[in-house]
């Protein structure tokens, strides 16, 4: 009997197999990049170092105090406030457009691209929460405060460069200039109990 010729493997189903694998990877893939609010925690205070003197303490007018109690209510600068108003209040505080003596002191700094400009560089937004505050509220407040900064920065960048601050690429030195004018200063204070137990 004559030997049969070796038959070639049928590759027709290869596409099906590849499709199967492809669909598997399509389904299991998570394309979501992680995103969130980035913060820098302050360094743990050195116990050996003496406490700062009263002179070095931040002046009252430079502090924007935001308290959130266990019922998720906001107290901003000793007044009850709805969270929807927080952004506008924070913007006014950071900018101090009318040189109000109750709002942060302005000082002149030299910024690339802008030259000498008056800024409230020593301002601090102090955010304090109770142990019972919900995390969702805390993030909402943080988000509003960052939004206040971003709106101011966007306006400044639009006016000077014709591009939004949030649209600039990372590492752009124009970004640093804007950040010099509106430095993000949200302090996450040492934990305290506000509003009693």
């Amino acid at each position, binding site marked *: 009997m004559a030997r049969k010729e070796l038959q070639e493997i049928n*590759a027709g189903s*290869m*596409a099906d197999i*590849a*499709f199967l*694998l*492809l669909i598997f*990877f*399509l389904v*299991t*893939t*998570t*394309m979501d*990049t*992680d*995103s*969130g*609010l*980035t*913060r*820098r*925690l*302050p*360094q*743990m205070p050195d116990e050996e170092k003496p406490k700062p003197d009263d002179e070095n303490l931040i002046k009252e007018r430079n502090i924007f105090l935001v308290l959130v109690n266990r019922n998720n209510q906001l107290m901003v600068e000793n007044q009850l406030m709805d*969270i*929807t108003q927080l952004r506008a209040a924070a913007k006014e505080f950071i900018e101090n457009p009318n040189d109000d003596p109750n709002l942060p002191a302005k000082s002149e700094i030299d910024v690339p691209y802008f030259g000498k400009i008056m800024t409230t560089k020593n301002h601090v937004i102090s955010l304090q*929460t*109770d*142990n*019972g*505050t*919900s*995390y*969702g509220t*805390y*993030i*909402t407040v*943080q*988000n509003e405060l*960052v*939004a206040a900064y*971003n709106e101011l920065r966007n306006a400044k960048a639009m006016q000077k460069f014709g591009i939004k601050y949030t649209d600039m690429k990372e590492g752009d030195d124009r970004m640093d200039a804007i950040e010099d004018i509106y430095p993000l200063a949200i302090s*996450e204070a040492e*934990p305290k109990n506000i509003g009693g137990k």
Partner: protein
Amino acid sequence: MARFQRSGKKKMPGISTASLPDIVFMLLFFFMVTTVMREVSLIVKVKPPRATEVKKLENRSLVSYIYIGRPANTKVFGTVPRIQLNDAFATKDKIREFVSSERDKMSENDQKRMTVSLKVDQDVEMGIVTDVKQELRKASALKINYSTRKGNPLEKERYY
């Protein structure tokens, strides 16, 4: 001229599917390379709060995750919010250990750029979060990221 007429009457040849496997394989390799499998299985329920002013976390290898939320299996573990590190529940004393072990995995250059991503459920109370933050400060892991979903927190949540 007659030739043109003849060819016009001919039927269109079918499109060759011989290169289909190659195309599919190309796609397959693309997805195989880009896929990131989740390393830990969650034993706490985490539904992050929403925020609009988010920044992306670029370098995945520099990020360590801490999960805080109510246990998924409430019958066994109760409903008190717990901290999850790697694959197990942990107390806050374990965080410093966790940070240093995560640090050891990185090269010396990357250690400074290490970020800790806090994946916290939106209904958790701040007490436990503050404790974790204090522990991170003690471990001098100062770069943190509050993981959020996209969306305006002041608007009512929409379900599609």
